[in-house]
């Protein structure tokens, strides 16, 4: 019995929960935490209307009635609180299999599960779209409220990574299907977490961001400190592109290391600029570990 309990504690995954709110009014009949355009409810004041338009005696507002000339009975109208669909679009390209200080694919699975958990906890539905060279229909998850979804998604992603890492070498996968992911989403505006390392060509990145323009996109950039921060100061190293872009010889020395760091800083600025141009939220950079609290702060601060 104690071992079972131990296994349960060790193996059970508790997703981190983060909070988000929308800077826009959702459309939808589903009840939830977000402001919507639908009339109804009693918390989100919309306007005063003549009583006959909203014949609810509990919503009669005497002060507004008195203010009218000629007098007529006014009542208050509220916006309904509703739910949106939260999506995670994940990049399953080969470069996401990079293992540095953390295993990127595991980090990605954790974040996806965390998003699912947070969405379900706040009453939204959660869906998953995974892309490599194609939109992965086997991993597709339409928005749902199903219980245990977070755990399910995490298990599915980890299993998929394990399977694909065994049959990898032949053709390195790129993330070329990312612009097609938008077709899998609901037409109504949704909250989309775009989880990728953003090692995409500028064209692909622009296309992806443009295709997601109808939605509220939160770019989550997964970088590893080993990529650019935590590299040896001296020595000769050859690096191979994980997506089949050839290899390169690097004679590492302090000036080159500095240059690499500068390149990454530039890339960071570049990503931020492109996201701003495409009208998404500010990208959230995740290095090595995922901290839901920081993501919450980011989401609540920078709408």
């Amino acid at each position, binding site marked *: 019995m104690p071992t079972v309990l131990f296994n349960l504690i060790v193996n059970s995954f508790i997703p981190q929960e983060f909070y988000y709110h929308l800077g826009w009014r959702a459309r939808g009949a589903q009840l939830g935490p977000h402001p919507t355009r639908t009339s109804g409810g009693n918390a989100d004041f919309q306007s005063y209307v003549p009583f006959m338009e909203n014949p609810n005696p509990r919503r009669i507002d005497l002060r507004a009635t008195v203010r009218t000339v000629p007098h007529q009975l006014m009542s208050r109208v509220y916006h309904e609180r509703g739910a949106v669909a939260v999506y995670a679009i994940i990049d399953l390209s080969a470069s996401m299999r990079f293992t540095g200080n953390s295993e990127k694919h595991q980090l990605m699975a954790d974040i996806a599960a965390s998003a699912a958990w947070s969405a379900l906890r706040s009453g939204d539905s959660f869906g998953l779209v995974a892309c490599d060279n194609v939109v992965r229909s086997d991993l597709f998850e339409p928005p749902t409220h199903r219980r245990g979804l977070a755990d399910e998604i995490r298990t599915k992603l980890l299993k998929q990574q394990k399977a694909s890492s065994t049959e990898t070498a032949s053709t390195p996968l790129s993330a070329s299907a990312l612009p097609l992911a938008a077709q899998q989403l609901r037409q109504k505006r949704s909250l989309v977490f775009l989880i990728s390392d953003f090692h995409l060509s500028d064209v692909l990145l622009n296309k992806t961001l443009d295709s997601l323009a109808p939605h509220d996109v939160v770019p989550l950039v997964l970088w590893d400190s080993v990529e650019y921060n935590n590299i040896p100061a001296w020595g000769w190293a*050859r690096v191979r592109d994980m997506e089949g872009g050839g290899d390169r010889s690097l004679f590492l020395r302090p000036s080159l290391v500095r240059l690499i760091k500068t390149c990454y800083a530039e890339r960071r600025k570049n990503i931020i600029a492109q996201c701003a141009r495409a009208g998404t939220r500010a990208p959230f950079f995740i290095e090595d570990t995922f901290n839901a609290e920081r993501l919450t702060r980011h989401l609540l601060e920078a709408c």
Partner: protein
Amino acid sequence: MNFINDILQFAGVENLGVENLGVENLGLETPAYLLLLLLALFPLLVRGHTTFAYPSIARLPVDPLSKWLERLWRILGALSISFIALGLAGIYWGSHSVERVGRGAHIMIVLDRSASMNDNFADKPAEGEASKMAVARQVLQTFVSKSREDLLGMVTFSTSPILAAPLGGDREAVLSALKATDAGGMGFTAVARGLGMALGYYEGKPVTGARVVLLVSDGGAHLESKTQDMLRNMFHRQGASLYWIFLRSANGASLTKPQEEGHDDAYPEYQLHQYFGSMGVPYKAYEAENPMAVEQAMADIARLKNQPVRYQEAAPRRDLSVIFYWLALLCTCGLFAFHLTEVKQWRTA
């Protein structure tokens, strides 16, 4: 060809002097090994070294230095393989002629040890003790110890020639041989065989200096015409010059004064002198009648033979594979240095 001389000097090969080395002189012992040169393409073409997986090298800056070091590394690999292949193929410089300047002379001293050498000089009857042998020995000893650059050898002869010291730089041997003549002379004067033996030591030696046969004797011998021809041939072949220090005996015949008719055989020295003069090689006779004259003659000889000799020598083919192995070693050292700088682990932490 300057760089080849540099390489040779670097590899510790002695200076070649003025050589007319040319690429046309290059040769190979076993050209089949050149097939190994194809292996040199391997470092240039091969891909698939251990690399670190990196998400996207498009994010990395282009570094020209790294690119060139990578190329250098490949070229070093190719070079070391080709140098080894050339070394295995046994590359060599073919025969070529070298101009050399010889300084010291090669002197074979042919010393007469016949019994008559124990006698006095002609016009010094008062100093009975100074035998011709003693004088000759003393003067020769000074000569030997003074001539630093020469190669010396010594043959003594009486009835038959004895090799005292072979032609070489060993002065001690010659001095010891001279000392050994203390024992006194005996027997007759077999000039021809002594000269023959002395000339025999030039055989097969490179002509790096004037060849001088220094005959020290007090008498001659009658030479048959056959022997005369043979000696002449030998002198011509070896290109040796002859100096004869004739220690004139008391009442002995002079070399220059012809004998009366009918007494030719009694004094063979004159005929010998005539014969030497007719040989066609540089020849000079010194007629010494006292120790001073002997010294004078030796000084003359020392001056004469010290002229530098310029000559062409066919050098043997030079094995260059050692140099190529060294070059291969250098390249391999470079490769090893590269290997040492390789990053074993990408992560520093």
